[in-house]
């Protein structure tokens, strides 16, 4: 049950990430046209709720998606399968979430 739902969560977040990554890369390509400055980035993101929501969704999706994928990698390549793997992955997920949201809030506020 849990593993099936993990698989489903990974697929759903993959679909979200596909859109997010495309938008993110397109924005980068567009934004660097006239050179890249912190002021220009902050000018776009500061106080902009749309970017706040977009990057929050991006971060949450990544924080769910990456640990589930890493779970298979750890199991298959390092033969790490016990409860401590799950503990590590929960910690990893929250680390991603915390670091990501810090960055999102950092460029919004």
């Amino acid at each position, binding site marked *: *049950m849990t*593993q099936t739902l993990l*698989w489903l969560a990974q697929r759903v977040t993959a679909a979200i990430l596909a859109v997010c990554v495309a938008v993110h890369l397109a924005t980068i390509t567009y934004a660097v046209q006239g050179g890249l400055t912190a002021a220009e980035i902050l000018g776009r993101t500061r106080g902009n709720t749309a970017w706040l929501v977009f990057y929050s969704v991006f971060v949450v999706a990544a924080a769910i998606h990456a640990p589930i994928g890493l779970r298979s990698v750890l199991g298959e390549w390092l033969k790490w399968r016990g409860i401590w793997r799950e503990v590590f992955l929960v910690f990893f997920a929250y680390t991603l979430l915390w670091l990501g949201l810090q960055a999102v809030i950092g460029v919004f506020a």
Partner: protein
Amino acid sequence: MRVLVKRSTAFQEFEVPRHPSQTVLDVVTYIQRKLDPTLAYRYACRVGMCGSCAMTVNGAPRWTCRTHVDRVLKNNELTIGPLRNLPVIRDLVTDMREFFDKWARAKGRFEGARTRRDDFEKVSPRTKHREAADAGIECIGCAVCYSACDVVAANPAYLGPAALNRAWTLLNDVREKENPERLRAVAGDAGCHACHTHMDCTERCPKHISPTAAIAGLKRATTKAALKGKL
């Protein structure tokens, strides 16, 4: 031609005459009968029905009785070894217990809802379920897919393509009693969700079955059941 045969740790070299329509099994049989009677290998039907003669031929798992030398010979050389992912008993003979135990673990046994006193169930071959079952029903249990699968190599608990394909055909068999145990058995880290869709099984299956499609079907079925809280 030059034939290298895996004998426990090292390869032994043999020179075998070429014949028209010669199969890899013919080559192994020639070696055992004429050159070295201590060579151990396994076969039964010689016509692609029994699934007992699979070996690794020039790096890929194949049914040797239906593999013509013409198709696989490279630089007049053949390398023959036992199947991968299974313990070797001797030379080219592998222990297939784990492979078939996994069929049992995937609830691969047919359990009909009718008794011998009931009439035959009429099953239309044109229904969606029957077509899905028919697509995988010709499996001969040769373990070629199991040997080709990298997920089996990386995750020893993984049930493997053949057992999951079997579960999928039974899931689509309308004569079967409903079996929620089977869905539970084929879900998760040892089941269909471990599959990375490399498709080595589908590429190698001598019966042209697609276990990958069966596994995708199981992923859909288990997800639906999980969302309904029935897994």
